[in-house]
């Protein structure tokens, strides 16, 4: 069974790009346009990994991470924030909310796959 990954980004091109990279690597990918939509999708189905942008309308990435960590099913699911924002304060907030890692945009696709492979096996 292929692993499923939820890709969250309000920027369509960025989201499609991340989704395609992961799909090309053999993962099943679902997309969400903001944190709130992602949270709904995550409640219907438990994904094996979530890659989320931070700066989004309705619900930002760190808030999404915190909400997901509040769901029992997401206890052991890796949650990676992918953002152009890399300030130490924000990263610390992400970490505190329960993020597994923080990746800066723009990113190297190979590096992203590397990370994903380490968490989804």
């Amino acid at each position: 069974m292929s692993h499923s990954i939820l890709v969250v980004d309000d920027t369509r091109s960025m989201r499609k790009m991340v989704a395609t990279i992961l799909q090309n690597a053999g993962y099943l990918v679902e997309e969400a346009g903001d944190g709130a939509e992602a949270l709904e999708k995550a409640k219907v189905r438990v994904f094996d990994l979530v890659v989320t942008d931070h700066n989004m309308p309705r619900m930002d990435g760190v808030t999404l991470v915190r909400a997901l960590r509040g769901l029992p099913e997401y206890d052991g699911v890796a949650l990676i924030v992918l953002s152009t924002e890399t300030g130490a304060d924000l990263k610390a907030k992400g970490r505190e909310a329960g993020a597994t890692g923080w990746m800066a945009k723009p990113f190297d696709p190979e590096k992203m796959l590397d990370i994903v492979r380490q968490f989804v096996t």
Partner: protein
Amino acid sequence: MSPRAAKGLGDASAFHAIFFEEADEHLAAVESLLLRLDPGKPDAEALNGIFRAVHSIKGSSGMFAFTEIVALTHVFENLLDLLRKDERALARRDVDAMLRASDVVKAQVAFRRGATPAAPDMRAAEAELRELAATGAGPRRFAVRLGPLAEPVAAAELDTMLAGLAGMGELANRKIDNVAGGEIAFELLLAGAEADLRSVLELVVAASLIQIDSSAPTVQAPGAQAPDAQPPKREAPVDDGSIELFEAPSAYRERRRGNRRREEGRREVDRAAGAAQADAGSIRVNVEKIDRLVNLVGELVITEAMLEQQHGPLADLARHTRNLQEAVLAIRMVPISAVFSRFPRLARELSQRLGKEVDLTLAGEATELDRGLIERITDPLTHLVRNAVDHGLETPEARLAAGKPRRGTIALSASQRGGKVIIEVRDDGAGLDRERILARAAERGMPIAADAPDQEVWQLIFEPGFSTADSVTEVSGRGVGMDVVRRNIKLLNGTVALATGKGRGTTVTVSVPLTLAIIEAMTVGVRGETYVLPLASVVESRRVAADELRRVVGDGCTLRVRDEYLPVRRLGDAHGEIAVIIEADGSRAALMVDELIGQQQVVVKSLEGNFRKVAGISGATIMGDGKVALIFDVPHIVRENLTWTLA
């Protein structure tokens, strides 16, 4: 199967089209938001919207290596950041500069798309934004506190520092308490960055003792220049793609292995959820739209009933309407796996905490329930599962001693029977202890005969404040007991039943209707008005003679039905010759009405939503003749007399 390494993005240009389209949308939004911005009183939401759009364009441009766009959107973003954080007052020229910049980005996007032959010159726009961002903050008032001091600061040093600061800005409100344990405080009106101020202060005191609060910016003095002001620290336009992991993958995998049991539960959920989603042709629809549809069909059902009253039976119309109603209600149905999915983890965590060993099995997760019910049944079920782990199952040692397997089993199942959904929570634990319950009842002064039938004894645990747990554990026994479970289920027109045997475990069976939107009802008439009683709460009805009613203390009456005296409830001074015996929470009452009209399905509408909350009334419905009929709140009426009277 392990996913194969991919050659990254492959052809990034495949995404260019999406990016161009998206960038155009964002730029159009930026432009319209900018044009609506009111300098002097800019709308924070509008600034945030512009920021997000520019930020999005920057992010994607970075991925496509459109470096000119990245460079311009970066300074654009810096200026916006100052504005939205209120560190710079929006001026007309800011709006103009941003409009020009967005035009240039648009031209650059057009060039990248191949729509224009020459690349626009972006430098002027970039320089303009940079200039505005750099002259950013006007003078701000910084409140500085240094202390508590470990030892006094050398007087000469302090003087030099204060003189230096006075040279940078305007010093005020000095409070100097330069002794060990004292504090040096002052305010400074400064056109510059906090970092600069801090670096001066650090020459004299340790960084950890410095506290700086900056007030909202004061109005920028004309011609005030702050060459040292720096835009807030932001990421470099092109990052090296650095990744920071908060947890090492090896530690993470280790943790996951420890959670294998939970994983299994999770897969179950996955499968159930997968099955629910398996139909490829599914779409997402806003719940409000569906609720509206349900309401409209409800109106249609009423219209159909009205037509029948006027024209006689219309068999086809009735059938089609009924089918349509069922189909619409089916849209709101969701599988109960939405609730069940949380229990494997709950059971695992609880059992670990309590030193018990549990296998949780799930069955019938695909059983469907109305969405509104799913939400309201979650808490009661969670409580039942908690109870099963906490009070139901014994410790592994006790189980072994009783000749049972070490691991206890909790089985959750759901099934549909007729118009009801039956949910069972079964454990193979110690079962209820009749003697202990009776002892506890005696302690609490609850009236029960020592030889009462089992079922009556088990009912005691549904009484408020009843708990036989020897120790009040962290898990259950914290006030929220079975009484709350029963009350919540009753509110859904459902029932809770319990079967148990000492040493053989306990089964709690919850039965709820498939939907809350329609109830089977008995309609009754009081003084020419029609009222509705949920059929599930009607026990029987009978005609009574006036002399059968016994007056009791106060102005209450009782009616003797077989061996039981029931309180009599009336609507105001309405007399009524027929008693409808209603039941709720295990108690009964006799409601006096003038006539029994019939039985039918009614579509429940909220009274609160359309009118206001009325004690004794749980909702309303519209009858076939178009009149509104109120639905009695049976638990309320059984509990207390109606306080309102008929007009």
